[in-house]
């Protein structure tokens, strides 16, 4: 079954079939991306705007490339240039963008719920490219796509998400999608980064060993220092690295064929050491980046198809 909603805001309401719709479509677009002429026409004549109210390099670029490869005119808009600096509200800014006959708005915003708020108050298709601590659905889909591509299926999997779970929108979107697919999800991190996480029904691990043992995929998360302005910081990055970072020594607890993912950007030597991050036996980080374009093409293509259908 294809995806028929106007927007893509969350993975929490995706069915198994809808997830596989995106993954199967992404596979086709990845084939296209690996061909000499990386161009399709499904968004020809359409306009997408990447409305980014928070800094981003890879996600914004990924959406931009995705839109252009589908033939769209892709416009980038960042808050440093925006009217919000002049006091305009978020919804007024979006409505002005939409008034210029924009078909898809890709929104990144520092407030949880912002993408949902925008989607509910505009006629354009809205893609959530990360809202506060809440969700980052395209990242979850590209993670699943990367796992599927490498392993050939998503059956009987155990995934450990390790690090700053509380502040991670990647974690939330992955948890929802993975649980829908029957994937077991384990969580591990320092207590101040696990606040309330039992709400998701995942196994909360007490040690790195517990997190790594019998795990098929490790998703390492970055410490979101920029999201902790009002909080008592954890004692030190050095200590974090010792207890919660992934090192060669700790990999002895992991399966030989374990996959390591990271949504980036990596803080080398903090959440993951370079000798692990760059080990071709484990790491799939650059595959994720590559697959991100194909997954985002699948998302944009699907939303426009819905409009035309």
């Amino acid at each position: 079954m294809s995806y028929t909603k106007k927007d893509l805001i969350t993975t929490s309401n995706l069915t198994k079939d809808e997830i596989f719709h995106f993954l199967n479509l992404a596979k086709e677009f990845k084939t296209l991306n690996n061909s000499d002429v990386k161009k399709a026409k499904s968004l020809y004549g359409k306009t997408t705007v990447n409305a980014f109210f928070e800094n981003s390099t890879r996600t914004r670029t990924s959406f931009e490339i995705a839109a252009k490869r589908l033939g769209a005119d892709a416009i980038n808009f960042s808050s440093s240039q925006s009217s919000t600096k002049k006091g305009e509200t978020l919804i007024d800014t979006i409505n002005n963008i939409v008034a210029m006959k924009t078909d898809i708005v890709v929104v990144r915003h520092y407030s949880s719920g912002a993408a949902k708020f925008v989607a509910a108050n505009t006629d354009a298709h809205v893609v959530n490219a990360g809202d506060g601590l809440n969700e980052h659905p395209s990242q979850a889909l590209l993670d699943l796509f990367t796992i599927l591509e490498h392993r050939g299926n998503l059956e009987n999997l155990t995934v450990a998400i390790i690090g700053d779970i509380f502040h991670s929108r990647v974690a939330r979107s992955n948890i929802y999608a993975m649980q829908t697919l029957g994937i077991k999800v384990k969580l591990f991190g320092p207590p101040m980064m696990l606040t309330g996480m039992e709400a998701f029904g995942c196994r909360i691990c007490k040690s790195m060993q517990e997190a790594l043992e019998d795990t098929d995929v490790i998703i390492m998360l970055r410490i979101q220092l920029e999201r902790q302005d009002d909080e008592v910081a954890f004692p030190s990055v050095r200590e974090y690295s010792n207890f919660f970072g992934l090192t060669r020594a700790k990999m002895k607890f992991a399966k030989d064929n374990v996959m390591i993912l990271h949504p980036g950007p990596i803080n080398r030597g903090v959440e993951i050491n370079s000798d692990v991050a760059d080990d071709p036996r484990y790491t799939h980080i650059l595959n994720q980046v590559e697959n991100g374009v194909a997954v985002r093409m699948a998302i944009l293509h699907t939303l426009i198809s819905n409009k035309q259908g």
Partner: protein
Amino acid sequence: MTTLIKNATIINFNETKKANILIEGETIADITTDEPKADIIIDASGKLVMPGLIDMHVHFRDPGLEYKDDINSGSESAVAGGVTTCLPMANTNPINDNAVITRDMIAKAKARGLIDLLPIGAITKSMGGNKVVEMGDMINAGAVAFSDDGLPVASSDVMRYALEYSKHFGSFVINHSQDCSLCRGGHMNEGRVSAILGIKGMPREQEEIMVSRDLLLAKLTGGHIHIAHVSSEWSLKLIKQARDEGINVTCEVTPHHFTYTEDELMNYDTNFKMSPPLRTKSDVTAVREAIANGLVDVIVTDHAPHHDDEKFIEFDKAPFGILGLQTLIPLTLNLVRDGLISYEKMVELTSTNAAKMLNLKNKGVIAKGMLADLVIVDPDMEYVYDKNLNKSKSSNSPLIGKTLKGAAVKTIKSGKVVFDFPNVVA
């Protein structure tokens, strides 16, 4: 001018009886089964007549933020909700921390003439938390209690002095119980829902820590501490223990805290964003039990208007607070319908106890010689609370557009009809 309310089912805190109420001028001249002649006859058949409600916790945003509400629109909202006496909090702009502003607020309310406005002065100058206001001067000007509501008084020393000083003048202190060092920049209750939404939360212990401190300071000073908008199960436990030990503590709860849980926030609806935040089912149950078992002294609205534009925004940027005056009666009647309280207890919680606490000897009871502040309530009337009924300049209520049951159909202030529900004959 005389008014006769006939066929009234009179609800007092201690009894319910059918009788006629004769009003002469501003006061109740008689409660009688006779039918004396009067200039105006109001037939209250099938309705309840209660003492005018006293709301000890409102924000009228006047002076300074009149675009949200002002004393005039606040007064209109009040009487449309059956409220004839309001205590506005001090977080105006400028802050009500001196006698001049207190007098000005009272004068403006008197000029409109719909309600009695009894200002709550700030505890500290500019609500800065450092220097206690001139409480004596402000009481002479008409202030009835002191609160930095919206902000807690962080300094234990300042709070101690405020309790001692207010006690000297026979007044009391209301604290917004919040240990802000435990806030984490929170926008809602910390727990399951905040984790799911990715919104930073405020643990209930933040409230409970401050309640504990203030109870201990009341023990130390013998002053009267009134705990505002209690929202947590443990706060209530602490208050009960303190009261059992003889500490001079009273407390209030709001309709939203006995009606809604944090689950309402799952859609990031900013009209459910308030401080203290909506909490869990166990907290709501505890608040309801505390109402039923007599621990709660008064129900207040914490009426907090914010302009539509301020709430139509990202959740974490939106201000805390919702409207309350016009939904006080229907939400409180739900407690009666649910069998938690009687009509008499409802009157006690919404009028009589406040009158006692504020030493308002002519209010809170329907009896001969009392001020004729009355509300005629139809407990069964169903209606849509829409923007036409809403008297506030703001519309930040999650109940706007919803069907409510029970309303003030006629409000009488000092003998004069000051509100009629549209198209309803009472």
